[in-house]
């Protein structure tokens, strides 16, 4: 059993305990979507919120699909919820999105030859700056102290 299915089972037990058996029979099973299309399983909801914050709304480009009111963001949230309920892994959901929208859909694209420049540039700049400072300081320390 994966840790995910453990927490799902726990959530199911909790849901049954909290709502009472009578209600639980009438309500759809835990982990499904309620009438408003929201996730009922709190564990899935936590994963949903994390994934939705990681995905860029391409209609507005600087908002995540969790924050955006755009129609497309709403549709993509629906897609993420449905995939979570269907038991898909985080990786499967991210690759569903990048297969369709490209790496740009992720705020933190995974390290790959294509994204190496984005991830490497800050460290390169830091090293470059350090090298320049080192040279300048060394040069100045060699200068004669006049006056």
């Amino acid at each position: 059993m994966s840790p995910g299915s453990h927490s799902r089972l726990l959530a199911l037990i909790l849901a049954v305990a909290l709502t009472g058996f009578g209600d639980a029979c009438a309500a759809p099973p835990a982990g499904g979507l309620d009438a408003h299309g929201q996730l009922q399983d709190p564990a899935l909801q936590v994963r949903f919120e994390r994934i939705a914050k990681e995905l860029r709304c391409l209609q507005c480009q600087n908002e995540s699909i969790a924050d955006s009111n755009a129609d497309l963001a709403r549709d993509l949230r629906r897609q993420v919820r449905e995939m979570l309920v269907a038991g898909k892994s985080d990786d499967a959901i991210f690759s569903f999105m990048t297969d369709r929208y490209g790496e740009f859909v992720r705020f933190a694209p995974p390290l790959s030859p294509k994204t190496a420049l984005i991830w490497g540039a800050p460290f390169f700049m830091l090293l470059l700056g350090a090298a320049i400072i080192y040279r300048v300081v060394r040069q100045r320390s060699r200068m004669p102290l006049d006056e």
Partner: protein
Amino acid sequence: MWKFLLPFAAFVALVVLFVFGLNPNRDIHALPSPLIGKPAPEFALSNVIDPLGIVSNAALKGQVYVVNVWGTWCAECRVEHEELLAISQQHVVPIIGIDWSVDHGPGERDKAKLWLERLGNPYSQVAFDQEGRTAIDFGVYAAPETFLVDRQGNVIFKHISGMTQEVWEKEFLPRIAAAGKGGA
């Protein structure tokens, strides 16, 4: 020597960067589609004009066709419509319309029907994407978007924003001519 060469190299690098970065013809919001070179997503949706009919791209395998994602709520699509009509008059390849209902309501179908009756119909078939799922499969994020699919069923080009005669002649026609070679 270094004191002269280094700033000069930096200057040249900046010029190159600006020539690419400040090109007014470049849409900074347009993203490369990961779909290029990959099979076009399959769809089988109800027909806008005839709700009992099904529009499916499986039936189009073996021919070059264009997919245009639009909606009556989209202003740019209204502008593009005249261009699409003119392009459809040339009868080069079939243009499949996908009417994207962003509010998931059935009303979009009636509006689309009215739109096509009043303004003319450039499409060989129009599919009704009420759930917006086909639009997601095609990676559409800003209608209108237009795709070119080759005989093998692969997407070979994508144009974001309104179609124009210029884009059609520069980007689509040469690719259609190249894709048309070899068979049929």
